[in-house]
């Protein structure tokens, strides 16, 4: 399904050359789907099959996964792609993480990494090509053995047939591996798919329910020591001096070494290292100016929002249109800093041997981490070997352009002179920085006689994720970090607004920031979907009907909204004491509409049901898509209802799950997922359902209480 007319062109025009700012290294992180669609499909050399798949004599097919499995299910999805073309026995398929190496750099660009909901759509061609090439080689090996033409042979579940003669893949794999790969392959037509599009069970479940799966924190090596680090207590604080004597008296503690901005205690095991860390005596110089206070910071942001910032996109004269309009609205939306808080606290194991180094960690950023380690050790990246373990959640935290947790561990291992596993405590994780930035949005909107927006002036205030990182040159253009504004200028709601401006104030603070599941969409969707809902209610129109009227030129958006509304029973009144709200947003190439049904129970917002309609173009594994949508809703709902970090004198006040609480099972709404296989280019699925839930819930709370909540987390009083 395509958008009618040339709306894609006009939107790209409005985006004012955003495409150019997104080239290169970070392409797959932020590239708006319309630009990805426009990219020509360039014929490339086929990937070397032997790097991606191995077949053992017992027919076991091992698929080498070039990305990181952090829960999103790619160990299964990418294996499905190879198995589809290879025609092997699915029961014999296993997956393993690839090492960090150039051959595993994704087709989408530049580095070996996992992020931007890019894995499945980015690898859709390459992994199928590998399967097809491997099959071709196996058939040629069998043909050589039988001395018949390869095109006479057929394959059934990993068994090659020549009339009544049979050869298992495992019997010819060794010979096949030595053959030159084919120059080209022909991939199956979708009608012939046996696995793609079918709900498939995960390949990693058994290891994950028996305790066998190895996460970074589980890595063991001979003579491995564990380190826990004392980091600055506040953003901007500097270590003046430390005394490790008391730490060294803790049984099991062996060394106290400087570690970046802090001090590491190296011990026989975690418990000793933690007791040692707690026994360290350190003197810190307070941050300049006393340190950041989040209340003060947000007040400053709100003040900034009164004036336009650097123009991101502009059409017509929004300011003039607003000043001459008779009906005007002005609203401010606010969002706090957020920690990712993956269940597995950060950790990294490093073993240095001369100018070589081995790293075991759950990272989303292999190439970047390799470079960081090589720089610290004064070596080249080919001497830095990375073993990617399972990730106990990533959500963006394990993809740091500054490689913080990896660089730190390399520094400690170098100083300690022994193999070291650095383990963060939960408190270290909550207080250790690299947060979703805090944001303020101010929207001034004029409406026409029907209540539709006719002028829109949108000011965004917040920190840049990419400025000052090695990615700045790629992701920041003319002072605009696209992660600060994605989802606004290209919003279909604004498409027919004749006078509009989006502008950005990029703020500087000492607080370290990073992408957080669905990145800029976490705040842009909250702001724009909240404002649209305000306009709908002000016009006394049904929020669904109002949106559909604005989206009548965007059939994919309209279809997703209609389906979610229909499945949620929008036409019928909600049960007594409840109300519904909705939101729709496109990110990472997928459009997700969500309807939330809420009540106020014991003075608190309770979300009973969430109905999602997801147009991801096509779904490789619907069972995986459902899991990712449910998970994204929970992740976003945690932020909507609870997520907030508070800074006082540069110090984060929250520390663990009692004051930074994730959603628990008894709070889990019923989440139903409806997939729309629209046939549009495949979108991402790990993130897009995160952003719409906060506005859907806020909009439902308004429908129930007439109280408009414009600040996250949502608080009734």
């Amino acid at each position: 399904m395509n958008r009618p007319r040339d709306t894609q062109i006009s939107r790209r025009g409005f985006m004012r050359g955003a495409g150019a700012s997104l080239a290169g290294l970070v392409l797959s992180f932020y590239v708006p789907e319309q630009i990805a669609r426009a990219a020509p499909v360039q014929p490339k050399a086929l990937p070397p099959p032997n790097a991606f798949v191995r077949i053992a004599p017992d027919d076991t097919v091992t698929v080498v996964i070039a990305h990181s499995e952090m829960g999103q299910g790619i160990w299964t999805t990418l294996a499905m792609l190879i198995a589809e073309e290879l025609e092997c026995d699915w029961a014999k398929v296993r997956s393993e993480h690839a090492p960090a190496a150039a051959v595993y750099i994704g087709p989408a660009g530049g580095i070996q990494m996992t992020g931007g909901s890019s894995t499945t759509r980015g690898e859709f061609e390459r992994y199928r090509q590998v399967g097809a090439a491997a099959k071709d080689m196996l058939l040629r090996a069998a043909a050589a053995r039988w001395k018949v033409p390869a095109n006479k042979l057929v394959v059934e579940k990993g068994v090659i047939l020549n009339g009544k003669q049979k050869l298992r893949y495992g019997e010819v794999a060794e010979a096949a591996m030595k053959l030159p790969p084919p120059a080209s392959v022909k991939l199956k037509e979708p009608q012939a798919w046996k696995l793609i599009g079918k709900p498939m069970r995960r390949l990693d479940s058994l290891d994950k329910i028996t305790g066998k799966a190895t996460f970074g924190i589980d890595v063991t090596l001979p003579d491995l020591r564990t380190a826990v680090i004392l980091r600055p207590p506040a953003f901007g604080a500097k270590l003046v001096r430390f005394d490790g004597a008391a730490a060294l008296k803790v049984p099991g503690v062996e060394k106290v070494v400087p570690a970046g901005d802090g001090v590491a205690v190296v011990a026989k095991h975690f418990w000793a290292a933690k007791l040692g860390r707690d026994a360290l005596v350190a003197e810190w110089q307070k941050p300049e100016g006393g340190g950041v206070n989040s209340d003060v910071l947000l007040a400053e942001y709100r003040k900034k929002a009164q004036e336009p910032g650097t123009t991101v996109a502009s059409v017509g004269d929004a300011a003039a249109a607003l000043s001459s309009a008779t009906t005007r609205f002005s609203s401010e939306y606010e969002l706090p800093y957020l920690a990712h808080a993956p269940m597995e606290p950060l950790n990294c194991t490093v073993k240095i041997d001369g100018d070589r180094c081995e790293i075991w960690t759950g990272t989303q950023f292999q190439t970047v981490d390799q470079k960081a380690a090589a720089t610290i050790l004064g070596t080249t990246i080919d001497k830095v070997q990375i073993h990617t373990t399972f990730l106990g959640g990533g959500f963006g935290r394990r993809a740091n352009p500054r490689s913080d947790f990896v660089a730190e561990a390399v520094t400690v291992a170098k100083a300690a002179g022994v193999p070291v596993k650095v383990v963060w405590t939960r408190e270290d994780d909550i207080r250790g920085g690299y947060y979703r930035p805090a944001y303020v949005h101010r929207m001034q909107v004029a409406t026409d006689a029907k209540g539709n927006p006719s002028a829109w002036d949108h000011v965004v205030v917040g920190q840049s994720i990419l400025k000052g990182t090695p990615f700045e040159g790629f992701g920041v253009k003319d002072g605009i970090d696209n992660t600060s504004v994605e989802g606004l200028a290209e919003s279909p709601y604004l498409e027919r607004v004749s006078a509009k401006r989006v502008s950005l104030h990029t703020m500087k603070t000492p607080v370290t920031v990073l992408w957080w599941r669905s990145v800029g969409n976490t705040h842009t969707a909250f702001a724009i979907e909240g404002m649209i809902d305000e306009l709908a209610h002000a016009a006394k129109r049904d929020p669904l009907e109002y949106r559909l009227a604005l989206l009548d030129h965007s059939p994919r958006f309209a279809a997703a909204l209609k389906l979610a509304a229909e499945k949620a029973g929008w036409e019928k009144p909600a049960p007594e004491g409840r109300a519904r709200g909705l939101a729709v947003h496109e990110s990472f190439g997928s459009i997700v509409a969500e309807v939330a049904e809420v009540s106020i129970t014991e003075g608190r917002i309770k979300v009973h049901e969430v109905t999602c309609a997801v147009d991801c173009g096509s779904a490789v594994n619907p069972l995986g898509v459902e899991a990712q949508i449910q998970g994204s809703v929970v992740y976003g709902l945690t932020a909507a209802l609870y997520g907030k970090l508070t800074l006082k004198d540069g110090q984060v006040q929250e520390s663990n799950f009692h004051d930074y609480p994730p959603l628990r099972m008894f709070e889990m709404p019923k989440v139903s997922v409806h997939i729309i296989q629209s046939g549009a280019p495949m979108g991402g699925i790990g993130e897009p359902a995160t952003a719409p839930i906060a506005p859907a819930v806020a909009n439902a709370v308004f429908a129930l209480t007439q109280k408009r909540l414009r600040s996250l987390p949502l608080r009734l009083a």
Partner: protein
Amino acid sequence: MIALRVNGTEHTVDADPDMPLLWVVRDLIGLTGTKYGCGEALCGACVVHLDGEAVRACVTPISKAAGRSVTTIEGLSKDGNHPLQKAWVELGVPQCGYCQSGQIMSAAALLAKKPKPTNAEIDTSLAGNICRCGTYTRIRAAVRVAAGLPKEE
């Protein structure tokens, strides 16, 4: 020296009596299926059974486990064939998987006492187990399937 039985095997460990059972099991005995998530009994990633009772190993001093029997995820079944584990695979519960040992051990303690739990009982028993991936819906359904109940109440 402190003696305890873990998954049916006797162990003697040289540990401070205050050292949490979690780190004894992980770092001294080498069973890493039990996870560290918070260190404060807030998340349930470290749940093991102590004489059949679900406990949070991160706040259980090893002295409390002396002479007693500990079951970790590795000892719940041979080859992952406990009804909960089978249901977990069948319904595709795990995402990142990190919290799942604790979830399963909490659920196993529940089913040992309440073979046919209601959803409310499941929610209460697993209230202490956090999953950041949001696998709660499938966890609840898998506990029901393991108990021989229909997936949804």
